[in-house]
């Protein structure tokens, strides 16, 4: 009997080409996603070295960070953004890499289009010059974000040099309450572990909450794992995973599919395998969440008060600076806080289920007059689903407009910037100072909490609408 292994060990060990003495492992990478922001300097480096792209067919390019969310048929107005988008297209063409640029039917946010087109598969190693690459861990892949030097490294060699991280398991059992979405589960976990609580670890999620979760929900959870400092998060592949993948455009078909299924289903943590850290939470403790500070760990139940400085793990000076930036006080209630903007979208919550959840609350209601709402699908495929399922009609009747796909206000590299001092309830992943525009104030929340704010104009408990 061999030593019991965790899911993470099984996938990692299967990709180690060489263990450098007193150094990192050389890890083979199955899929490399690139986008316009973190790749141009990597291609320049490649050129300067006289190297080429080793496996263009394992590399996929999409334009997302800089792209406008209206009038995508027009030339991109910002010359710097246009320049980066042109560089991506030029580099992809030169090296023979598939490129889903603006206007392409498969274009969208990299972490949305990878899974929905069947590029992301269980047991893979996947990297991208974007920290939310951890999203793909939902499929039982080891997926993590890398820097631009590493993008160059993977382009040139299809490998990355990484020390093996420590392993953490986070188990959540029980039944989540009313209006609790996967976003609330992960925001709750981050609030309990802090923004640095999983640094140095790779997380495996276990327990009935994740077993019963849809693939889209699992992607939301793995996506935000990075926000507690972890390299990534993953969930063992199961029937839910297979059902999601079967028949997708680039998923394996026929005999190849049949051959892979038993391998994929073997990718789970063996009985007796150990973790460096094991954390357990009870789903009953989780209610709809909202953040009040300037990192994703500073969040709480939507009906709760903002904690006092002496009760948080971060240093009290940093905490007070955070509340000052947000314009909040210790011990205040979050319910009823004024909101100016609502953002539904991003690689965290820009999928069809997120739009279904949002629509379930705004249906038959009206957008509050004080709210500017940016509803941004994660991809053209999601956009099409929104139209086909009648969600667009619901949104339109409630006074909302749908925008075109892209990262949008998540990091505000395009024109979708929340003005200084304004409050945004945002389904994205980060509430750092200035993240959604210089001086903008972000409250992270689920699509249901966002919808409740969009129709009331203030922070509202979504349970009152369900």
């Amino acid at each position, binding site marked *: 009997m061999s030593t019991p292994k965790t899911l993470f060990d099984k996938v990692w060990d299967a990709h180690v*080409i*060489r263990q*450098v*003495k*007193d*150094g*990192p492992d*050389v890890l*083979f990478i*199955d899929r490399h996603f690139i986008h316009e*922001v*973190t790749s*141009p300097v990597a291609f*320049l480096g490649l050129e300067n*070295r006289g*190297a080429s792209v*080793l*496996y263009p067919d394992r590399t996929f390019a999409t334009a997302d960070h*800089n792209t406008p969310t209206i009038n995508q048929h027009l030339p991109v107005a910002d010359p*710097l953004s246009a*320049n*980066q988008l042109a560089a991506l297209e030029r580099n992809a063409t030169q090296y023979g890499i598939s490129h889903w640029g603006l206007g392409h039917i498969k274009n969208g946010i990299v972490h949305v289009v990878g899974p929905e087109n069947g590029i992301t*598969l269980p047991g*893979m190693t996947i990297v991208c*010059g974007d*920290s939310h690459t951890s999203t793909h861990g939902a499929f039982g892949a080891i997926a993590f974000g*890398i*820097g*631009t*030097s*590493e993008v160059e*490294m993977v382009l*040139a*060699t*299809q*490998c990355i*040099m990484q020390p093996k*991280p420590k392993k953490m398991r986070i188990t959540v059992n029980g039944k989540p309450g009313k209006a609790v979405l996967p976003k609330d589960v992960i925001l709750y976990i981050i609030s309990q572990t802090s*923004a*640095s609580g999983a*640094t*140095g670890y790779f997380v495996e999620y276990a327990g009935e909450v994740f077993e019963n979760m849809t693939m889209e929900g699992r992607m939301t959870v793995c996506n935000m794992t990075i926000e507690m*400092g972890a*390299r990534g998060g993953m969930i063992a592949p199961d029937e839910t995973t297979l059902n999601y993948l079967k028949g997708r455009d680039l998923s*394996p078909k026929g005999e190849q599919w049949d051959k892979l299924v038993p391998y994929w289903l073997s990718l789970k943590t063996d009985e007796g395998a150990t973790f460096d850290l094991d954390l357990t939470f009870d789903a009953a403790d989780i209610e709809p969440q909202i953040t009040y500070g300037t*990192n994703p760990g500073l969040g709480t139940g939507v009906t709760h008060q903002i904690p006092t400085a002496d009760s948080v793990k*971060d240093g009290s*000076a*940093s905490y007070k*600076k955070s509340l000052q930036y947000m314009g909040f006080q210790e011990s205040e209630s979050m319910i009823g806080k004024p909101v100016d903007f609502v953002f539904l979208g991003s690689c965290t919550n820009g999928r069809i289920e997120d739009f279904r959840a949002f629509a379930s609350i705004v249906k038959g209601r009206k957008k509050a007059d004080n709210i500017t709402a940016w509803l941004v699908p994660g991809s053209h495929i999601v956009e099409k689903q929104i139209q086909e399922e009648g969600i667009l009609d619901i949104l339109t009747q409630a006074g909302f407009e749908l925008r075109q796909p892209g990262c949008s206000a998540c*990091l*505000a*590299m395009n024109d979708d910037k929340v003005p200084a001092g304004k409050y945004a309830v945002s389904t994205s992943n*980060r509430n*750092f*100072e*200035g*993240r959604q525009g*210089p*001086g903008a104030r972000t409250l992270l929340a689920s699509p249901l909490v966002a919808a409740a704010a969009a129709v009331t104009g203030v922070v509202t408990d979504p349970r009152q609408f369900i």
Partner: protein
Amino acid sequence: MAYDKFTILRSSAVPMPNENVDTDQIIPARFLKATERKGFGDNLFRDWRYNNDNTPKADFVLNNPTYSGKILVGGKNFGSGSSREHAAWAIYDYGFRCVVSSFFADIFQNNSINVGILPVKVSPEFLEKIFAAIDADPKTELEVNLPAQTITLLATGESESFAINEYKKHNLTNGYDDIDYLLSMKEEIGAFAETRPF
């Protein structure tokens, strides 16, 4: 990208005791639009450093002539958030060669070494000592000795060891990078790729 070799660095230091300094603060997203690695130092800590009218904020440490040097001393969980290597480029381009903290975010730590910045992780107690020493004398010098893996407060001789992977240490001391190493493995990589099921 080649960088200067790192062996022994003696310098005064710039203190930034805030915890959870994320890479969005180090370099805001709107400055990531370049297609070349140039000029990032000008926008290092842009929104903490400048007012909206581009005048410097007097109370920000980089605008305070009392503090200078090639070492940046940060609070716990330095470099959290986005994977943008631009943050490390901005720190390097500004003139820092070493960042000291009691705790670094993973990707930031990797990115730093990859661009030639040495991240030195010290104990929370030693970090406090460094902040106190700088507070007492802004010109106080630190010595960061990579071959010996030590960081020393020169005025008092107080010292602490820091950990670094032997391989990474070798790279930094010689100005090499991982890509050179991997390019020499091309055949082995090719053979491995053949065995992948997808």
